[in-house]
């Protein structure tokens, strides 16, 4: 894994106050303990990778950050002030945009309507204030094209899109609306090579604009390509946070696998899956 990436990497300035700070978060579902005390923060202009085995609690954790779940214990500070987001809408209004792992799309609705769901552009005023469908269509097509997807049209139902097309809608939407923090839960999992590189490039771009990015991935190479800091979860607990350069790809991969042995693949996959 080469360190001399073409990417600019955000300087993790310890002095800059974090936008969101999560302290000792626990989350229980009935008798199931999904998070057993996780701390995490995200600063402006950095890409903080959240890594870990399947079922480690990454998605649960970021859902707590974006107001989907309320933590069972623990504290959330937003720009230094204690904050509890009752709904995802609250967190959005505070400037957090999220791509959820399940994408949060409505299959029966068109791409453009999904794109602007909850934040529809309007034209006219007073009683004639209405959903500006033309603008919505146009922006959707443009943003999708930027990510490398040429849709047949903005009115195709999301349910009939391919897996990668659908994921791209969710990412393009979050990027378009992400103001202060952008949370991406395995955004590249269904993407083609071209779309993946677009997304990584996009992460780099928004980071350089001062947005804090939380990036969840199982791909060590993707994480290392854009990450400034790496926090690894395992079985609902954090295994610690490392800065870029402080940790080798192999160490990282080892942590992500929860310390357990991998099947014999190292040879063919050159060290990292």
């Amino acid at each position: 894994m080469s360190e001399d990436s073409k990417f600019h990497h955000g300087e993790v300035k310890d002095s800059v106050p974090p936008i969101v700070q999560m302290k000792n978060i626990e989350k229980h579902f009935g008798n199931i303990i999904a998070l057993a005390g996780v701390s995490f923060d995200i600063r402006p202009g950095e890409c903080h990778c959240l890594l870990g085995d399947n079922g480690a609690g990454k998605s649960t954790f970021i859902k707590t950050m974006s107001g989907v779940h309320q933590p069972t214990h623990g504290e959330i500070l937003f720009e230094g002030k204690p904050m509890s987001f009752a709904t995802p809408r609250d967190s959005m209004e505070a400037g957090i945009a999220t791509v959820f792992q399940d994408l949060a799309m409505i299959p029966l609705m068109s791409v453009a309507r999904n794109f602007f769901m909850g934040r529809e552009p309007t034209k006219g005023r007073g009683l004639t204030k209405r959903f500006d469908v033309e603008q919505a269509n146009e922006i959707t097509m443009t943003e999708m094209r930027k990510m490398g997807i040429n849709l047949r049209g903005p009115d195709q139902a999301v349910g009939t899109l391919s897996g990668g097309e659908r994921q791209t809608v969710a990412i393009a939407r979050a990027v378009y609306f992400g103001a202060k923090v952008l949370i991406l839960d395995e955004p590249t999992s269904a993407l083609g090579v071209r779309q993946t590189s677009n997304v990584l490039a996009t992460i780099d771009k928004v980071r350089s604009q001062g947005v804090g990015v939380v990036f969840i991935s199982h791909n060590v190479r993707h994480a290392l390509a854009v990450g400034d800091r790496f926090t690894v979860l395992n079985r609902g607990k954090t295994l610690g946070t490392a800065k870029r350069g402080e940790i080798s790809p192999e160490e990282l991969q080892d942590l992500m696998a929860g310390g357990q042995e991998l099947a014999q693949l190292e040879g063919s996959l050159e060290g990292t899956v």
Partner: protein
Amino acid sequence: MSDSAPNFEADERIKAEPLISRLMKRPELGAIAGVLLVTIFFLITADSAMFTASGIINFMTPAAQLGILAIGAALLMIGGEFDLSIGSMVAFSGLFFGVCVMVWGLPLIVAIPLTFVFSACVGAINGFIVIRSGLPSFIVTLAFLFILRGLSLVGLKWASGGSTQLRGVRDATENDWLAPFFSGDAFPGFFAWLAEAGLIETFQNGTPKVPGMPVEILWFIAIALVATYVLLRTPIGNWIFAAGGDANAATNSGVPVRKVKVTLFMVTACCAALVAIITVIDAGSTDARRGFQKEFEAIIAAVIGGCLLTGGYGSAIGAFFGSIIFGMVVIGLTYTGFDQDWFQVFLGGMLLIAVLFNNAIRKRVTGER
């Protein structure tokens, strides 16, 4: 092996599509095929009086009364919920309105807004219980089906001094300037002129068979247009589709799902109140069985018109045509020579055929499997 640069305007991955199949894909227009089928059926079997001006108005009146409810029900169904209490709500807000006018002697300008506010509150209660408890709206509004029906009975007995009928509303409102907006026929002059000109039929004694356009038909059309506009051209419309399509995904995308749903319950209740006001002034009375099973018929009309019971899909225009189909079938039998004993067989058969036909036409035209 590399590909030509994609060109959005002429994508090779799309076949040309005739206008008609583009239209038939819209849930709004699916129900038109059914309307045509039913019309043709009655043109063949029914007395020609059915499709004269008076005949059309005759079946459009119940269609309009049902349709106002059906459009409310359709909005709510698209938003992912049911309201089984709208039938009882017609009786209950009818009672409330009757009490305003007859017991408290309020003028319409006060009584009507009060009735709407009152009904909207009841709708909001429905909505709040559904939202707060997370129970299916089916069971919650079903409870209100019984509760409101029962309260109507108790209230009527109280208001009328022991009867289940409250009478005299027509006389009490006759001279109110607001009454013409909620009862009777609009444009009587125009229709009288039409009759004189021989453009519409008259009775032997020369009075026009149709004195005017019943106001409920105008309300029906207006509400269908407004609802369609809201659904397709406003942010709230988008929220309604999203809330019904997947409440979870919608919430996670920032749609205020709870507010949308509660508002829809209030709108549905107001539709019921409107029907109540119109029919109470028109009939001059209200009784404990008003609106009986209308919730059911409203849902039928919405479903005929293409709404999915699972939410997230449908249209107000579909409910509009669905109500017309239902109204035509219910009234149409009167104009045919069929034996009344067969009425239900006929009603069920026509509904089934109309819906199957809609569906078959849509599939054929759009090339769906």
